[in-house]
């Protein structure tokens, strides 16, 4: 049997903002059941790429295929129904709702009954360490709490492909370790993951494959060990202060 077609196939994806070419021709495959990382210095175009895949930003060129279907130009809610759920780098809680109600909005994607959806939401929230905060308003959460809520809400929606945009930014080293274990657990349950992260040790620990973006263009693709040794990557990163970031851990 031939190798299975990738779950996600991105071809020639491009987008400009005025004179700025934020993403210029991104090619990227994500095989089902794997964790793929999209990394690169600040402003490289990672969030814009995620936003195009999830339908929030319309690409100027290129295509996105998911599970054999061309989803280019679909609206976000339709893409979510198809099985791709994204998180937001700048967290976007439903501020006036409780933490449990936030997560339940995700659960409502696959579960129509309010009580059952709430039960799922509370169970998932507790699993992600939000048990004590479930009845608090989401607006009261700390940065770490909000990151966790983003993850919980997305997971509650039962995605086939999860797009994680810097869910570890601003977390303490312990929290990063917890989240790495959590993401691995999610993958083990059969969810495919595409993530972007500046916390390198997390990327190295998690990714099966890494794509490196700089100034909107893909400069390297490969397994973690190969990427870490790639002089083009080191160069792109050194300019952007990657050494300091690695030291901070």
């Amino acid at each position, binding site marked *: 049997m031939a190798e299975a077609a990738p779950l996600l196939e991105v071809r020639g994806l491009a987008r400009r903002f005025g004179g700025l070419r934020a993403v210029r021709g991104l090619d990227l495959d994500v095989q089902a059941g794997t964790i793929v990382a999209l990394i690169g210095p600040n402003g490289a175009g990672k969030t814009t790429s995620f936003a195009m895949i999830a339908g929030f930003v319309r690409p100027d060129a290129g295509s996105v295929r998911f599970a054999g279907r061309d989803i280019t130009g679909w609206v976000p809610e339709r893409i979510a129904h198809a099985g791709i759920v994204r998180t937001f780098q700048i967290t*976007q809680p*439903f501020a*006036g*709702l409780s933490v449990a109600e936030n997560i*339940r*909005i995700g659960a409502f994607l696959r579960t*129509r009954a309010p009580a059952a959806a709430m039960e799922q939401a509370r169970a998932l929230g507790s699993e992600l360490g939000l048990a004590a905060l479930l009845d608090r308003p989401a607006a009261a959460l700390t940065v770490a709490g909000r990151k966790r809520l983003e993850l919980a*809400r*997305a997971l509650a929606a039962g995605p086939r492909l999860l797009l994680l945009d810097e869910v570890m930014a601003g977390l303490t080293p312990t929290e990063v370790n917890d989240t790495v274990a959590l993401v691995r657990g999610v993958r083990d349950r059969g969810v495919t993951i595409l993530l972007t992260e500046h916390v390198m040790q997390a990327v190295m620990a998690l990714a099966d494959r890494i794509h490196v973006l700089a100034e909107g263009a893909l400069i390297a693709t490969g397994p973690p060990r190969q990427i870490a040794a790639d002089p083009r990557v080191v160069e792109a990163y050194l300019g952007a202060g990657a050494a300091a970031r690695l030291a901070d851990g």
Partner: protein
Amino acid sequence: MTGAAARTRALALALAVLTLLPFASHSQFFVNLAMLTAISAALGQAWNIAGGFGGLTSFGHAAFFGLGAYADAILQTRYGLNPWLGLPAAAAFGGGAGWLIGTATFRAGLRGSYFALVTLAFAQAFGVLANSLDITGGGSGILVALHPGAGRFQFTDRRAGYALAVALLALATLAAWRLSVGRFGAHLLAVRENEDAARALGVPAVRVKSAALALSGALTALGGVLYVQSYLYIDPGIAFSAERSVEMLLVAMIGGAGTVLGPLLGALVVHAIADTTRSLITTPGVAPMLYGVVLLLIIGLLPGGVVRIAAVRGDG
């Protein structure tokens, strides 16, 4: 949380008892006052479904009220339909208009104050149309012939009018309560709180908002029918007045927008203040000013509405 739930239930019970009181009264004056308050509460609740739960702050809900009123008046005077049929017809017109206005404006990405202006413009435009068309009787409006009797949907006993107002209030409050417990209502709140986050989780934002506006418009249009059947007259000024749009919004905001019981409390408070200032102060112009000041104070001091005094749950 259980304390708040118990307080919510107590408040709901108190309000239910209060609605029953006028049935025992023989004072036409008192019953009339109660009817006006109940209509305000029902219209405020209808506004609340879009404006409170959905955050769709409309400044032109009179558009739906007027559509309902004219649908009812025209169908019976020009087409000889039984006025009871005005109810489903008005609901269809109000709901249809809400759906169309919603889809058009939300697809165009209009939100917040832009949406408020669009609704205001619709109410104004409908007023202009009603003033100039033949079928609406132009500026002189439509007079419905007096035919007292339940079969013709006309009642001489004011208590019957009050009962109909309470029925509409109950219907609108039932709808609001369903929103507070169901999936559609949760989607509506999610879109209100953060549209992008909601869409990322599969919530069809435009459809959800349009449906809420349709439901709100249908209920508001039913209020227009009750008006025509009580006063047997409608004209463009009454149907599409800015005052009515503002009152609907005020009742919901003063009571507590986005809560199930808020508009009921809001109608009580707004009517109490309006009637008290009017009867206490006879110098012309001062009463409305005082009324405005008191309402501003409430909005300033109680941003969540008077329902917060009872410390009920957010969804109470």
